């Protein structure tokens, strides 16, 4: 124990005495670790933002979209549509007891016009029970009612960014009742949504909700739905409900289960896909950053070799008074590991600053977890071991006599 303490002490003395050289030696490690830390922290931040916005859709959410990702043999089914017929079939409490609410969704982009401005935004035609399926909270007014849907009324619930863009002239307490033109059709604003933030890739605040009946017959003139969204009584019943929906709906459409022309997905599926995508990106970027660690490691090797040569006589002296090869090897390995771990700590600090700074510019809350810091520390120690090994081995193998005579 005392031996290790002395070796550590000597290594620290060596590092401090050669401050500038030590710093230049570990600069590569500092930059590499900082880059890895920053990318991982931002990646995890982005992932968290995406998953939290997907979770805000509701964790017990099921969607049915037309078509399949895996298509059967050609000609099996061409009529891959979902419409009123399927919706009515699903929207039956006796047939699907675990379904608590279902709504058609007709999504399309449209030009919106306010008093002066004009924007292009997503318009969703949904049912009046849509707030039971997705957690939409209203800042002002109300969501449209069953009667609005039945009568295909021109009423709209708008996101806060739509209000900000189109109705900026209007006092916030006068937004309700204002007129909004969607594809040249006038609508009356009945509700203003609370901000939900951006969902990683799309801005959830730049959205308009109108009755699906109005969307189908007046605005987009289409009978088929983009999807049917369903919420289940209990998130635990999601998987069972998916199987039930697939079986019964295939039978209803007169198709074998394997030939079905629709896809049933859950919010967990979206979450899994999104997190796979972000983690692939994060890993890829961090791997590129890790290349600089190899470059930094080569720097460590270089300086350690110089140090071994400079200290040849010290090594000879140590061997003369009884140091074994293992003692010399561990001393130099420890020195290089201490250098790289020190560089790793500086890199972590720098990486955290970088992640927070860039995160603020990009609107991502950087996530610095214990895991990342532990990973960076062990990587820098590993770099020290790998790239310090050869110089340390060289030192350990020195012949004591010629080492003592070395000029």
């Amino acid at each position, binding site marked *: 124990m005392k031996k290790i303490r*002395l070796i550590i002490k000597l290594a620290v003395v060596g590092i401090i005495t050669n401050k500038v050289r030590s710093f230049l030696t570990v600069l590569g490690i500092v930059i590499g670790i900082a880059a890895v830390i920053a990318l991982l922290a931002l990646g995890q931040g982005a992932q968290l933002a995406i998953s939290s916005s997907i979770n805000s859709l509701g964790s017990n959410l099921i969607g049915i979209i037309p078509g399949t990702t895996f298509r059967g043999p050609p000609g099996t089914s061409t009529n891959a549509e979902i419409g009123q017929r399927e919706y009515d079939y699903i929207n039956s409490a006796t047939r699907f007891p675990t379904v608590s609410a279902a709504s058609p969704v007709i999504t399309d982009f449209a030009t919106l016009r306010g008093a002066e401005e004009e924007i292009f935004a997503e318009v969703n035609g949904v049912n009046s029970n849509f707030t039971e399926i997705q957690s939409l909270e209203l800042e002002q007014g109300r969501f449209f009612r069953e009667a609005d849907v039945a009568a295909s009324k021109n009423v709209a619930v708008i996101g806060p960014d739509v209000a900000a863009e189109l109705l900026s002239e209007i006092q916030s307490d006068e937004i309700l009742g204002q007129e909004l033109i969607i594809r040249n059709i006038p609508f009356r604003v009945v509700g203003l949504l609370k901000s939900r933030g951006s969902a990683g890739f799309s801005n959830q605040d730049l959205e308009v909700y109108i009755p699906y009946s109005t969307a189908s017959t007046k605005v987009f003139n289409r009978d088929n739905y983009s999807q049917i969204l369903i919420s289940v009584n209990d998130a635990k019943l999601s998987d069972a409900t998916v199987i039930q929906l697939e079986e019964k709906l295939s039978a209803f459409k007169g198709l074998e289960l394997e030939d079905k022309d629709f896809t049933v997905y859950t919010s967990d599926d979206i979450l899994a896909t999104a997190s796979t995508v972000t983690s692939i990106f994060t890993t890829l970027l961090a791997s590129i950053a890790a290349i600089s660690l190899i470059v930094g490691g080569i720097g460590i090797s270089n300086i350690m070799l110089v140090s071994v040569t400079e200290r040849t006589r010290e090594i000879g002296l*140590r*061997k003369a*008074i*009884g140091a*074994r090869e293992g003692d010399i090897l561990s001393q130099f390995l420890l020195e290089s590991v201490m250098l790289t771990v020190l560089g790793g700590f500086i890199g972590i600090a720098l990486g955290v600053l970088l992640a927070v700074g860039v995160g603020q510019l990009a609107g991502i809350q950087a996530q610095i977890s214990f895991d990342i810091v532990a990973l960076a520390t062990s990587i820098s120690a590993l770099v020290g071991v790998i790239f310090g090994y050869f110089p340390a081995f060289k030192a350990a193998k020195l012949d004591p*006599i010629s080492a003592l005579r070395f000029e």
Partner: protein
Amino acid sequence: MIELKNVTKEYGEGENAFQALKGIELDIAKGEFISIMGPSGSGKSTLMNILGALDRPTGGQYLLDGQDVGSLDDEELAEFRNKRVGFIFQQFNLLPRTSVYDNVSLPGLYGGLPQLDRRVKEVLEKVNLLDKIQNKSNQLSGGQIQRVAIARALVMEPSIIMADEPTGNLDSKTSHEIMEILQDLHAQGNTIILITHETDIASYAKRQIRLKDGEIFSDSNNKDSDSKQ
């Protein structure tokens, strides 16, 4: 205690082979103070390396306390040096920027000596440097450095103390101080082997061996040494 039987050392191979030691026969008893002298190229450094277990003989036998040193592997040689030999060199004797205490305790750390702390203070007291225990090696004079080196050589209570030109870098006054310390250690029963090329330094030893061309040229008892004591 030390027995060299027909010890040879060869460097190189074939036609370029060079015989540094040509069959050395030497017995050194416990408690002797012996000096090895000779011009450069006489083989005295080679002999010191073999006596100090830094190197193995090519032929013959080196027995210390009955153990055949030539048959030890590198690890065993390192342990042998640590436990049985105390080295004092001419220069670069201490670790730079390291305290007297750490320098002296180094062999004890490698050898895992129990109660090292007490032992370090004991040997520093012997060389009268207890007051410099926390000083760094670069804050010491040449004489003080050699005294620290002597203390370090004593820490493991070795069978022999090897002093290789210990006064080579010192002025004559300091040289004699160092030699007096070695003489005291001899008086306390330590076996000391001194390698030097200076006659007046060698004269501190009771027995003087002269080497020439890899052979023992003379082996005589020194009548002077009593007067120096």
